[in-house]
């Protein structure tokens, strides 16, 4: 499994200077997570690849707008999220659908979700059934372990909404996995 690099290890400064090797390293680090993020949101392989390419091109063009180098990852995912919205056939419905939030029950769910091999298919299926807005939050949490503030920035939603969505999505997943456990027991 590729480890999530610490932000300070990323050669963002060299990339700013136009070093192709630095860009290559950055893109190699993020290409698969961004593809997974795009594919799981859009459910389309070609669209996923397009999003990766457009994200990389936009990153090269707009790196000057990145103020903090250690936020490169969330900045790149924010670009990818925008590209996903552009690719969605009906953006207003697909990525901004509003599911009733549950701000009254924001107790923290399990921080580290571990899934058994036989539950993997069920996990992916349950993930696909989540509303795209919740799925986006959950994917950002799972793939890059972004903070809530970073996820809010990437998805351009209020922090409270992100909290609520993450809670809702995790709860739904845990419920499924528990049910699956009971069935197998």
């Amino acid at each position, binding site marked *: 499994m590729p480890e999530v690099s610490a932000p300070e290890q990323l050669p963002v400064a060299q990339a700013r200077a136009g070093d192709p090797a630095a860009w290559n390293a950055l893109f190699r680090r993020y290409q*698969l997570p961004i593809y*997974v993020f795009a594919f799981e949101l859009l459910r389309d392989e070609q669209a996923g690849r397009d999003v990766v390419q457009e994200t990389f091109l936009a990153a090269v063009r707009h790196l000057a707008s990145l103020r903090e180098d250690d936020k490169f990852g969330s900045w790149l995912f924010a670009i990818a999220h925008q590209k996903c919205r552009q690719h969605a056939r009906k953006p207003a419905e697909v990525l901004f659908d509003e599911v009733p939030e549950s701000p009254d029950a924001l107790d923290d769910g399990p921080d580290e979700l571990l899934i058994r091999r036989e539950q*993997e298919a069920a*996990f992916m299926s349950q993930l696909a059934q989540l509303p795209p807005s919740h799925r986006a939050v959950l994917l950002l949490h*799972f793939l890059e372990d972004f903070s809530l503030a970073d996820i809010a920035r990437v998805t351009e939603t209020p922090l409270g909404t992100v909290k609520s969505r993450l809670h809702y999505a995790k709860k739904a997943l845990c419920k499924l996995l528990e049910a699956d456990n009971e069935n197998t027991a």
Partner: protein
Amino acid sequence: MKTPREILLARHRAAAPQLDAIRHAVVNDLSRPTQAGAWPANLAAACLRLLTVPWRELVLPARRVWTALAAVWVLLFVINFSQHNPVSSVTGQPARPQPVMMSWQAQQRWLNELLTDRAAPPDADRPRNSGPGPRTENGEISFV
């Protein structure tokens, strides 16, 4: 036991070769401008960007407004054009002159007649060439 991240990345690892190709293409594009002799392509790309950026930033976001404005301009042009057309659009016959135009033409004719009548004025009507003489000869100069 696996983490969700491990499961997600493993599920899509088959896409890695295609993603590598995309990465190589983008990085190659990045290093191309530094090659010698690439400036005409860069210039062309810059010119194209100069054209496409305003189009994307100004026109596309408000394309309905621009379309409405264009429709209004076309309408104004049509109205303006139809007012200058001397041929009646209904009958196909030359349009009848307006009353104002007719009165203007009558006045013009009347003025022409007047001018032709006075083309050869009698001698009595001719202005005299004898102007006033030098002022010093007109009379005595009185000093008060």
